């Protein structure tokens, strides 16, 4: 989507701009990508160098660069690590630096390509929290490619892909209604959705549409206090 590979058939359009060999660098300015492996996308020798890498490529002047590097690191709460070297950081911290490097360029769209799949649960939570905050504060579209359903459940819109083709599109609620179909695809449904179904089968009057465990727990507590 940001021109690392071109379409074999059809066209790719980003914000009404057709992706071609000529427009690819413009498009890359508008789209930031965060990849899977935290180590292999860290270019700079220190945190601030890495965040500055994209800005250097864009030819931003030095004063503006310093400002934006600091701003971006503030947003991902990594400003205390300015001069740290990558091998002293945890995976989650490295991914947050990668996100800072992306937002320093002020893109319209951020693509997370399995960005949390190599992290431990805590690192994953850190990264997702950061992304969520960013999305709320700035007008950024976040496209998250993931196999983690708890993560996917928090999306506004969900697209299920199967064998390179669009399989289903809709809100997470709609998608998780498919249950059996998803399981047939080798995916699963979140634990909370599963539990709701089981509870309903056993005659507990739980409402549908809980996507996260917290929501479900809250609802169950309310239900319990009513009884």
């Amino acid at each position, binding site marked *: 989507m940001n021109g690392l590979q071109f379409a074999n058939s059809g066209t790719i359009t980003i914000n009404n701009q057709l992706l071609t060999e000529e427009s690819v660098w413009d498009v890359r300015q508008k789209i930031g990508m965060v990849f899977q492996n935290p180590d292999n996308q*860290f*270019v700079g020798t220190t945190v601030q*160098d890495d965040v500055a890498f994209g800005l250097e*490529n864009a030819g931003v002047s030095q004063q503006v660069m310093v400002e934006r590097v600091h701003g971006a690191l503030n947003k991902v709460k990594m400003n205390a690590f300015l001069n740290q070297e990558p091998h002293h950081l945890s995976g989650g911290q490295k991914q947050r630096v990668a996100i800072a490097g992306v937002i320093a360029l002020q893109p319209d769209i951020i693509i997370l390509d399995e960005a949390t799949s190599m992290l431990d649960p805590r690192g994953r939570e850190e990264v997702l929290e950061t992304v969520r905050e960013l999305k709320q504060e700035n007008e950024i579209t976040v496209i998250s490619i993931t196999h983690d359903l708890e993560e996917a459940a928090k999306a506004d819109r969900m697209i299920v892909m199967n064998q390179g083709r669009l399989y289903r599109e809709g809100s997470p609620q709609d998608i998780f209604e498919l249950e059996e179909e998803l399981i047939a695809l080798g995916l699963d449904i979140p634990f909370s959705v599963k539990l709701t179904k089981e509870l309903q089968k056993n005659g507990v009057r739980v409402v549908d549409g809980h996507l996260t465990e917290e929501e479900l727990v809250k609802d169950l507590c309310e239900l319990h206090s009513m009884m």
Partner: protein
Amino acid sequence: MLDKMIIGRYVPANSLMHKMDPRAKLLLVFLFVCVVFLANNVVSYGLLAVFTILLISLSKIPLRYLYNGLKPIFFLIVFTFLLHILFTKEGELLFEYGWFEIYEGGLIQGFFISVRFTLLILVTSLLTLTTSPISITDGMEELLGPLKKWKMPVHELALMMSIALRFIPTLMEETEKIMKAQTARGVDFSSGPIKDRVKSIVPLLVPLFVSSFKRAEELATAMESRGYRGGEGRTKYRQLNWKTSDSLLMVSIGVLTVMLFLLRS
């Protein structure tokens, strides 16, 4: 494993030498290496030694580190000293025992050469001790900048160097991990005859190479998606600034050169 690395070991501190522009320091070392060969008598060598001691005192580097830098070449210094004693047959004969003769000239020459070696190593290790590798890279890029006119890929070389520096610890960690994994599978790295030990490196190197290539590919993709397209139109985040103290350093090496010309016999 990381602690054993001695090449370019940088000692962070807040001294005058640390604050110097890396370009000035690189030029200083380069010029020093050239003018060392001008000295040919006690006074001129003495002058060089005083200059070196002055630089060291400006750097506030603990002498222990400088000594560590000298240790590996200690053998070389002693060796050349002995060669000179044995084979330079000039001046007065000082000592004779059968075929073994020591001449005054040999003794003096050997001594001078050892001093020259020591001074060279001291000054170059002073550079790496007071300048972080990344600053050295920046300084090199700037200094070699004019060569771009002759199609020398200066920016690419500097980027290569900085990426290499960045990945040294990562690859070290990886080596350790692979070593453990192979030990768990029964490879013995630490004992047995040399032949077996060399052979046991193979199962270490193969996975290391495979993963390095994979890393390189992913890094290239990441760089490209962040808009990297060579040195053209690129700005620099790290700025070098040439201060008065840097100019003074250059003046000092100039004065040193002139004095050496006057003092040499």
